């Protein structure tokens, strides 16, 4: 099980409150986590990564254990703390309200 935190507007879109808990098959990577997320919440397709290129969209970033993982390969293993659900993978999105 992997814990994932989404930005507020995506939680609203997917009608999620709080963290998402995902069963991720195989190695825990950005790609496998997002695959599991999009399988469970199809309305999130295209919001975090481009549906065609599968690249992270430039107005969201991935963090875990306080570190920015946004430029890591989508197939790189996520930190052990994320893979073991000790820490969540954070999807942080741009907001502009003031």
């Amino acid at each position, binding site marked *: 099980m992997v814990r994932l935190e989404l*930005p*507020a*507007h995506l939680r*609203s*879109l*997917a*009608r999620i409150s709080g963290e998402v808990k995902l069963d991720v098959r195989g190695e825990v990577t950005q790609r496998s986590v997002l695959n599991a997320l999009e399988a469970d919440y*199809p*309305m999130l397709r295209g*919001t975090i990564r481009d549906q065609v290129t599968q690249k992270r*969209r*430039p*107005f969201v*970033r991935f*963090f875990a254990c*306080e*570190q*920015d993982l946004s430029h890591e390969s989508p197939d790189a293993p996520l930190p052990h703390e994320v893979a073991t659900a000790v820490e969540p993978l*954070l999807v*942080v*999105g*741009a*907001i*502009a*309200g*003031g």
Partner: protein
Amino acid sequence: MRMFASTETIGLTSEEVLRYSRHLIMPEVSQEGQQRLKAARVLCIGAGGLGSPLALYLAAAGIGTLGVVDFDVVDYTNLQRQIIHTTPDVGRSKVGSAAEKIAAINPFVKVRPFDTKLTSANALEIFRDFDIIADGTDNFATRYLVNDACVLSGKLNVYASVFRFEGQASVFAAKSGPCYRCLYPEPPPPGMVPSCAEGGVLGVLPGLLGMMQATEVIKLVLGLGDPLIGRLLLVDALAMRFRELKIRKDPECPVCGVNPTLKELIDYDQFCAVRGETPANSAVLPEMQPEELNRRLDAGEDIFVLDVREPHEYQICSLGGHLIPLGDLPQRVHELNSYREREIVVHCKSGARSAKAVEVLQQAGFRSVLNLAGGIMGWADKIDRTMPRY
């Protein structure tokens, strides 16, 4: 760490010594630090939710010159969080209202009101007379404008933003750390991330974040502590949890990277529409004006009204339409199968969510789907002035 510690000082009068005594007795501030605060020139972009506590606390702290930029007027819906404005201020210019409150709190502050929209044409000129810029605006176009103008003019950008129960804060100092574009190179597509007007914001939250901005400004002026440079602070008011994330300078950043390509300010409205990847068909997204909908419904025409807001919004006001919140629409589109041959008019609060719903329905094969221009608030403006606004 001293990023900006003004060496310029201005003497304090005996009245100011009394006023700032709680600062002066702290050796970290002392008379020298208070004189630095008096010499500092800080520009607040926006006199709204963030700008209210920011300007009030900076004034109280004794920032000598405080600029405020805002083109808006005070609205009733502002009063839930924009505490620099009061009920009698509704209808007044925000900078006029803010300048009056700042002067009342601290007459020693020189207020410089800019009752204008910050644009590519005036930003660098306005920024020129200030040392630190505090970004409390409410839209992506102005945030990129503030960032780029700060990088190009070498100013510190003390940043915060809020949405619903969450906020973000950082200090962008492009000489030594990342800028806003390093964090978010491009804005989201228009309508993807709702504004506070669309999604709401807990009234105290901009208070919390605005005070963090004020704290960072004061630290920068005094040269005290560790500024939020290279760190993004996430605030979750519901969990009352603060997370700190490390953010890095992007060597390929177009404005502060190794080989910058952006050397002058651009058209930020266009940038946020174009780089935000407006859907190709948005320019031709079919719309219906409230007047036409009203006339045709009155004439008894067979128009199906779909409301894609949330149930709690429906309780505030409605046109009596069929309610399917946007987030549920992909799963519940079958509910509309019997209306495939009818004209469907979709609305939300102001038109952004319903535009997305129109696309969803078009992709599901519905041919005659129109977006109600301006949403139900457009209806409240043009058709039913008694309808509650929110």
